[in-house]
């Protein structure tokens, strides 16, 4: 992917409405994002971190939402679940954007 921003790669079994608060969180921080839907159960790290900023969000079919960076060797930087409250998902999106912007995270 060549466009700038945060890549969001999502399993096609997820209903987009359920995760839209993440998009709003990213938008509120003024960061562009690119959504890609794949026919996959498990969204591997390589699928969402292979972009210009090497940062992205992967959403697997089991509802696990993970933010990671290509060179960040741990399993994830931030983790959330699709069942979480709207507020938590919004904050997740905001924090994903804030990591890209180099700002401290919101609670």
């Amino acid at each position, binding site marked *: 992917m060549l466009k700038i921003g945060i890549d969001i790669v999502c399993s096609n079994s997820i209903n987009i409405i359920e995760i839209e608060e993440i998009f709003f969180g990213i938008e509120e921080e003024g960061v562009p994002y690119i959504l890609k839907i794949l026919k996959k159960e498990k969204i591997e790290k390589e699928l969402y971190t292979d972009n210009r900023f090497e940062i992205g969000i992967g959403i697997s079919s089991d509802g696990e939402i993970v933010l990671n960076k290509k060179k960040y060797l741990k399993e994830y*930087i931030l983790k959330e679940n699709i069942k979480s409250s709207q507020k938590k998902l919004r904050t997740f999106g905001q924090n994903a954007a804030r990591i890209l912007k180099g700002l*401290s995270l919101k609670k």
Partner: protein
Amino acid sequence: MEIIAGVDIGNATTEVAIAKKDEMKIEFMGSSLYKTTGLKGTEENIEGIKKAILLLLEKLNLKLENLDLIRINEATPVIGDVSMETITETIITESTMIGHNPDTPGGCGIGLGITIDIDDLQNLLENDEENYIVIANGNKNFLEIAKILNFSRNRGIKVMGAILQKDDGVLVNNRLLVKIPIVDEVQLIEKIPLGVKCCIEVASKGRVIEKISNPYGIATVFNLNSEETKKVVPLSKALIGNRSGVVIKTPQGDVKEKIIPAGNLYIKTNKSLESVGIQEGAEKIMKKISFLDVEDIFGEDGTNVGGMLKNVKNTMHKFTGENIDDIKIKDLLAVDTFVPQKIKGGLAGEFMCENAVGLAVMVGTEKNQMNHLANMIKNELGVNVEVGGVEADMAIKGALTTPGTGKPLAIIDIGAGSTDACSIDKYGRRSHIHLAGAGNMVTLLIQKELGIEDFNLAEDIKKYPLAKVESFFNIRYEDGTVEFFNEPLSTDIFAKNVLVKNGELVPIDIKISLEKIRQIRRESKRKVFVTNSKRALRKISLTKDIRDFEFVIIVGGSALDFEVPEMITESLSKYGIVAGCGNIRGVEGPRNAVATGLVLGDEEC
């Protein structure tokens, strides 16, 4: 050959030095340090003394029975108490403002209009003549808000700006047909009056508001006369540096900066009783005190300062049993500072830096307390205890063990509660002084100016260098150097200002830049340590001139500070003084001067 322990009970730490001594020579065996338990010079010190001695004996493979003598310092028990007196406050009545600074306000520019609830927009007639600022509480989501605003715009309603309760400013703005400035995250939105004139300003990214942070800007917006403009000065001051802000003006609006009568200080000398108002500021207070031969200082009854000074005397009375009338405040250090205070009448919990005076006072008591303490220690430990010479004299004796020193010499001993100074001329004549204000005062200034609640965090800010976490793998120190990490850093500290405390990164959770924290830390140290070093040298000089001294050694806990010695050295170099940190016995650094001096005892120095 006997084994002697010198014990220096300080305000913060108790230091011990142990040496073998015979008529021919003294051989120092080691030293230790433990937190002072209780108020300096009181029975509660015994626990700390015992711990410090036992710690060292264990290290030296010795037992209490091996000790022949303990010599304690004849420390005039002192309390250095510190306090803060706010002398101004900003009160906003009727006229209101939101000096709010959300992370992501929406749009940019200035909007001026009458406040209206978003639900009332539908009641307006098409093409209404008035300009409006819309208020939307947290019940509505951004999609609804954007829809209503777009619909109203299409009906010819002039919406010039919006104030939102939720963090949705950008989301609303992105969905508007015509962009307007939007301030969001306003908690107390229900307090905003409706139907009044209101001005919103949002600056573009990287800039700060210019119109409403300038009194004449507000005057232009609200069409104020010169009298009214004067009244909005504190309001505009409170908005300086914000990226967004709101000013709401009601017909009866009034903003004022009030000078709080913080009370008078009374300085008793052997001839007269002088007074000076706290609200006159530190400079005037210190000027007055420096010209007087202080016998006692007390504060005006019924005021904060009166209460604080009385409290100090009461504490001393409680611990020493001495008659309260015999307890005198011998010195005081006043420092001008700014303290963030909540603005009365603000709408979103705004703070403004108000003028304040920081005070440190020092109380002295009689010598017999130490004899009493010596007896208590003797009973507790079963070792002979004697009271050594005056603390400052002992300190200079210890300081003279620093390689490369000699008489004449002056030392500055900066501890937690007091700054002591002592000089010795080439004939061995000495002069010494105890002054109020040292490490604890600096911590208080840092704590108050940064508006942090935790005293320990302020103490750490004083002691450890700052850094900014730049990525998950590196931090940049305040001096620009960069450190990298193999393991990723925690998200809890990502992009935050941190303290580097013995390798641990401690986040400083306040919205103040690293540069500002550093500036406050350094200024606080300068105000106390540098001011007191000069004050102390002037007091012990026979001619009251700092230039009398050629060499000055800095000792005491605060000399371990990573920037204080350099600050003092630099400021004294202007007077032609060579100043530097002590290195007691060539091994201890600036600590252990008094304990070492006590062991040396009557040895000629």
